[in-house]
């Protein structure tokens, strides 16, 4: 099975799917390959913050302007992926009033609306804040659901003719003289290998950019930075809470649906695939952020996770197409590499649409096409469908036993019909794919009590037949889950984990594949 298309996109993150959608809207055929599922990389492993740009206003005014522009665009095109919470930049006594004044001035220069608040006002809005704060500034931050955002970009692109192959890994680049003429790929589930011929290959693999470039004997200056985050069981604040001081580690709390995400650290990483959240990072985040929310230490945490950011070291790229300090678009043909290969990397979730726009502008220019970008005005397909916490809570009302309204995931109130709809669509191939598309297993028990229900459903649908059936799928899930909960396992979570372990070991008689901890050997 060999395929042919105009543009091959490698990487199913926000950037890759954003490019696929932009190409599709401009009528250019494309095919996207992703070795895991959508959002497997940094797109699915960030804080879910809709930046106002405030965080960059003082140090990097260009990035700040970029953020606030994209912030307004995303609110328009993807309102269902965004909770417009607003954010506070909170000054503690040690942060001083000087930075706050600079901050307000810089935000003004970047076009970011600010509303200075007295300590009293800020505390009445966010009662759990440290009562010692000396002031706060409100900015248009928000929370964004990157999973829905990426999946809907992909869905919209597909409906306009783009093709998507997930769980499909690029094994080599096809050379045709001085050109790259396509990619060789392998299906990671069926092991089937095939070639995809294309005029253009876009490397949108983020932290994996050099993995792909190495196949062409190329390399760009890319540093990998691990950022670790913690998730609380309940939502700590209504708004995003930032420390009003120069950007540093452990200075932000982002409300996300039912939970809050505490972030982040920044540590050099060698490998974008193998890393873990260390106990030092957990202690650091809890200590540092309890300056903003003093009773944070008594909070229950449900999960720790990390993502790897690709940070550009531009002096080595020698590329003049760098659009901002945030991201770079590199046409390897114009800097002594093979033609037909383009790398887009760096940047952040906030600028994914802009990165896609610039990439597709470039492709169009080279193809001699004059079609303007429309991703900043075309709304994503699901726009208009609300899913507020209240709406979700009301699902409990419709719940009747064995009927359609049956809830699979008690913690996050995910109904069976939501999973059924995803299965009917036929795009998912693995358990994690389902988890990326719903909030199943993202709540208090982290799937401990609901994944076996999901497996029952999969068995009914004969989705669990391949690769050894439900047992292997369950073990793989439990191992992945264990990685996330182990760093924050104390207090009530630990008690609950003992209960969950006894269910899997004692009732289900699940045995570990190898010596180690049952219910999830260390990966």
């Amino acid at each position, binding site marked *: 099975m060999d395929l042919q298309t105009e543009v091959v996109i490698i990487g199913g993150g926000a950037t890759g799917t954003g490019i696929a959608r932009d190409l599709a809207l401009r009528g250019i055929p494309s095919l996207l390959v992703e070795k895991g599922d959508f959002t497997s990389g940094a797109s699915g492993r960030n804080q879910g913050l809709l930046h106002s740009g405030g965080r960059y206003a003082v140090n990097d005014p260009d990035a700040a302007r970029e953020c606030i522009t994209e912030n307004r665009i995303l609110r328009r095109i993807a309102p269902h992926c965004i909770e417009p919470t607003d954010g506070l930049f909170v000054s503690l006594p040690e942060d001083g009033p000087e930075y706050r004044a600079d901050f307000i001035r810089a935000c003004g220069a970047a076009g970011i609306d600010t509303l200075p608040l007295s300590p009293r006002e800020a505390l009445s809005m966010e009662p759990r804040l440290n009562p010692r704060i000396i002031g706060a500034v409100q900015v248009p931050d928000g929370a964004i659901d990157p999973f829905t955002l990426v999946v809907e970009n992909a869905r919209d692109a597909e409906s306009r003719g783009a093709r998507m192959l997930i769980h499909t890994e690029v094994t080599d680049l096809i050379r045709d003289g001085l050109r790259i003429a396509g990619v060789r790929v392998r299906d990671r589930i069926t092991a089937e290998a095939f070639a995809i011929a294309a005029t253009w290959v876009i490397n949108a693999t983020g932290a994996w950019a050099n993995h792909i470039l190495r196949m062409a004997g190329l390399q760009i200056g890319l540093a990998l930075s691990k950022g670790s985050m913690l998730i609380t*069981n*309940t939502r700590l604040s209504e708004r995003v809470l930032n420390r009003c001081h120069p950007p540093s580690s452990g200075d932000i709390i982002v409300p996300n649906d039912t*939970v809050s995400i505490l972030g982040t650290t920044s540590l050099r990483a060698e490998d974008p695939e193998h890393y873990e959240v260390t106990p030092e990072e957990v202690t650091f985040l809890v200590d540092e952020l309890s300056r903003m929310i003093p009773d944070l230490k*008594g909070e229950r945490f449900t999960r720790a996770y990390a993502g790897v950011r690709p940070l550009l070291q531009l002096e080595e790229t020698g590329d003049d197409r760098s659009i901002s300090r945030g991201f770079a678009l590199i046409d390897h043909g114009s800097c002594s590499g093979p033609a037909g290969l383009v790398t887009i990397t760096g940047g952040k979730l906030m600028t994914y649409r802009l990165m896609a726009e610039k990439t597709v502008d470039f492709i169009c220019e080279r193809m001699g096409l004059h079609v303007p970008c429309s991703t900043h005005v075309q709304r994503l397909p699901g726009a208009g469908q609300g899913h507020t916490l209240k709406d979700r809570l009301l699902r409990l009302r419709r*719940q009747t*036993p064995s009927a359609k309204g049956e809830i699979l995931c*008690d*913690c996050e109130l995910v109904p069976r019909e939501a999973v059924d709809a995803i299965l009917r669509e036929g795009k998912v191939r693995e358990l994690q794919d389902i988890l990326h598309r719903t909030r199943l297993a993202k*709540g*208090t028990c982290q799937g401990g009590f609901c994944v076996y229900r999901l497996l029952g459903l999969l068995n009914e649908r004969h989705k669990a037949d391949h690769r050894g059936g439900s047992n292997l799928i369950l073990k793989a899930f439990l191992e992945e889950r264990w990685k996330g909960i182990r760093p924050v396992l104390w207090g009530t979570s630990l008690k609950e984990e003992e209960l969950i372990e006894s269910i899997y070991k004692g009732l289900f008689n699940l045995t570990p594949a190898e010596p180690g901890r049952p219910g999830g050997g260390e990966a």
Partner: protein
Amino acid sequence: MTKEEKPGPLTKLPDVCVRCATCMTACPVSRVTPRFPGPKQAGPGAQRFRSAAEASVDDWIELCTGCRLCDTVCPAGVPISEMNMMAKAKYLDERGRTFRDWLLVRSDLFGEMAARYSKIVNPLMKKKAVRWLLDALLRIDRRRALPAYEYPTFRRWFRTRQAPEGGGPEVAYFYGCFTNTNETDVGKAAVEIMEAHGLTVVVPPQRCCGIPRLGVGDLHGAREMGRRNVDSLLKTVRGLDIVFSSTSCGLMLRHEYGPLLHLPGAEELALRLFDICEYLLRLREEGKPAATFQPIPMKAAYFAPCHLRSLDIGLPALELLRLVPGLDVSMIEAECCGLGGLYGFKKEKFAIAEEIGKDLAEAVARMKPDIILTDCEGCRMQIRHLTGLRVLHPVQLLRDALERRGTA
């Protein structure tokens, strides 16, 4: 909001739940209707979706009867019913309460009057036309018998009676509204059994404990009732123990005034509050003068009310009843009678109360007892309604065993 009225840190509560779902198996309401999602889901589960700043949407919270069985089975110590109470209060504060609910929780105010004119009121309450009107206008279900009023009230009886030669240690008695105006014999029996144990009974000034207000989520009203009771009862407990014969009044005084309503002085009061059977049993265990019981050859079934389980004192009534020679007493193996106080009188909830009670009715049918004994007036009403049998407070039978009057 003054400091004493500040609610507990409810935001923390969902964190304590280990999601074992034991409470889901104990909840009588979710057992019979899918409209109530059960304690775990309605409490710690839903709490993660609630925002203090936004209006409540979880209308099912009204279906919680407040039986507190969830609390008693929770291995993690989550105050689930308290969480549900706060949610119910917020929901009903926003939506407003019906005139029926306003009226029913004030039965203490018209009770004295109704008792005085019981000869007119009682037949009236049995009239089909009146019941139809109450059903249609106030949605008080006409299939539920309304409790008859009695005169003289317990309070009047106590004040005007010829007190026996005392001299024994004094104890204060909290009789509760229902005993005062609807089941005066429970109060009389309580007084007599305590006197038979060498005690001198005093009745301190008191008023409705306020638990009916909790049923409609009226925390403010309940707090007002509680504050007045605490003020007068504190004077009493600074010298005397107080016993109660109504389980729900007792639960309210002992467990809700403090942890839920944060009334100042509630903890001091709680330390000297006792269930009547708990108190008598303790006297006997301490070797204090105790009454002896005459044989009552009878087959009795004892039902432990939900609120008694919440008091966490074991089953003192059952232990006392087993001291009565000839009395063959066994437990009714059922979780909840289903009435939930005023809950079962409400038209929209009548069917739920009936369905919950089926288990109990079936258990009783298998046991074929001559008499049923239970500490709670709500349970007594419901069991009479479900079985048609004679249902008494345990102290009534104990009193009869004293006097060799026989109960048959």
